[in-house]
């Protein structure tokens, strides 16, 4: 299991965050996905054998959001 904190640019509406959360949670191999609106971060925990960071980034992009940086999550 890999945990990451993905920092998002231009996340300005809470409901957009909710939609991203639902979409990423549906990815195969995703154990948990949570958007923290106050900090503009997506916290994910996923199985690296089934899912890659690139795939998560694609979904983020599809929601019109950009990734500024990622770091190991808690």
């Amino acid at each position, binding site marked *: 299991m890999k945990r990451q904190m993905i*920092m998002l640019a*231009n996340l300005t509406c809470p*409901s957009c965050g909710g939609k991203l959360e639902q979409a990423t949670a549906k990815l195969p191999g995703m154990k948990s996905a949570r958007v*923290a609106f106050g900090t*503009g*971060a997506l916290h994910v925990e996923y199985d690296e054998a089934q899912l890659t960071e690139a795939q998560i980034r694609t979904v983020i992009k599809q929601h019109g959001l950009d990734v*500024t*940086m990622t770091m190991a999550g808690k």
Partner: protein
Amino acid sequence: MMRHRKLIVVAAAGALAGAAWMLKGSPAYDVLMTLAAVIAGFPIARLAWDGLRNRAFTIPLLVTVAALGAIWIRETWEAAAVTLLYVLGSYLEDLTLERTRAALRSLIDLRPRTARIKRGDDLVEVAADEVAAGETVVVRPGDRVPVDGQVTAGRAALDTAALTGEPLPAEVGPGDRVLSGSVSQGGYLEVLAERVGADTTFSRLIYLVAEAQEQKPKVQRFLDRFAQWYTPTVIATAVALFLFTRDVELALTFLVIGCPGALVVAAPVAVVAGLGNAARRGILIKGGERLERIGKVDLVTLDKTGTLTQGRPQVTSVVPFGGHDTTSLLTLAATAEQRSEHHLAAAILTYAKELGVAPSPVGEWRLDPGLGAVALTERGEILVGNRRHLTANGVALAPAEEAVIAAAEARGETIALVALGGRPAGLLGISDPVRPEARAMLGALRRAGVRRTVMLTGDHAAAARQVATALGIDEVRAGLSPADKVAAVRELQARGHVVAMIGDGINDAPALATADVAIAMGGSGTQAAIEVADVTLMSDRLERVPEAIALSRRIMAVVRQNVALAVAVVLLLLAGVVTRRVFLSGGMLVHEASVIIVILNGMRLLRS
């Protein structure tokens, strides 16, 4: 960019409304005004819908309903004005949201990214997250320590400011523990990794800030709380009016007059004027919604180093030993330190320069990391450094000299010992002086209604108590880690205090984010502290803190006056509408007059 969408909306709708004004009297007027209201109103309608789904009656809902009503009864200008003013206000709010998030990004930027791992005789560079516990990493000058661990070989001066807030580097050697995020200022270290990746102290510092920002209760603005009962009352009354009179025109007039421009601009005008006044005094307040909190602060926590003190070490005492005087001692120290980039050297050289003492020429010179400098001169070998440095070079201290050193240490000074030709020549005491305005600021805080002051510092208890006693601070908590500072702020909040925190360091950032009101030193403060702060003091003028509290109260008072005035006018007008004494055109005129009064009242805040 999403962020600029609202600005585009304001510009487009504003241009349309402007065009409509020029075509006043023509049939195009109503069409253009309606278009402007639709463009500006669409995002508001969405907010209103979001609010309704959460069972919240919001100002956007009132604006939406009133704008629709205004279009219905052909008051298209009113619809355009009310929606435009609202979108402009919410654009300004978005700008402050982005700034809050920048705090976390600048911290993540600072985290160690790469590590040099020792494998046999080879050094391999890897991403800092990929180091495993049990591996040995090598830290060279300028490197950030990538892991928490124990020094197995080498010596170095480590800048731990990110974690402790202290500007003076710590000297470490074999057996000492080091923390990730410290920066090596010189020397060589081999560190056995114990905690890595997400478990390191620096990673946890980042999570602390993230958590604090998530958990900080969103302060509901005064106007939002007001809308919670005002909006349903107006809408319900309009509906009731229609049901009783069956007069659509009357009900819609009621609705439109019930949502005055004065109410929508009441707060923004006062807030923008007040924040402008604050900015002229060097107080940057990040957003209007923080003003109410700032005005309610009753307990202030303060960091010591860099906040109450200047954060720049200076020579504060010079004690020559037998056969030397102040000038000769300073000459020796400056001579030995002139090539050094050591943190204490800068303080010594600055002081020598101030007194007009010039260093003598130096032959051979070397720096022993963690100990001090050695310089060969015509007068013999000069040593400047700590006690271990002298001992290592065979210099013994007399009991009287030991007593002088102990006294300086008790004053909280860092000691640089000087020796010439194998004999002690004297000591220089270096400390970080208290800001001259700190004492007056603490007095002014009390007058501004702050009941208690608490120092939260990563420094040792002795140095902390020294400063606290001199300034009259009520309580001292020393030796705190960033997480301890957060815990202290939480505990004070749990006792019912509205807590402000004043700080400057990266180590203060989590506590700043946790406090109800975060105040950062803008001049000397770190980016992380400034970005997490609600209030930033430009040029570090501490005396501005009480001013910020007093000004916030004034701004909130004007906001309340404005809202009260807007509502009072509305109530009178509505009474007139219901009793059929006030009609639409006259009502609108009074409306616009109240907008002007509210704006003028808000502008008072521009004056000091």
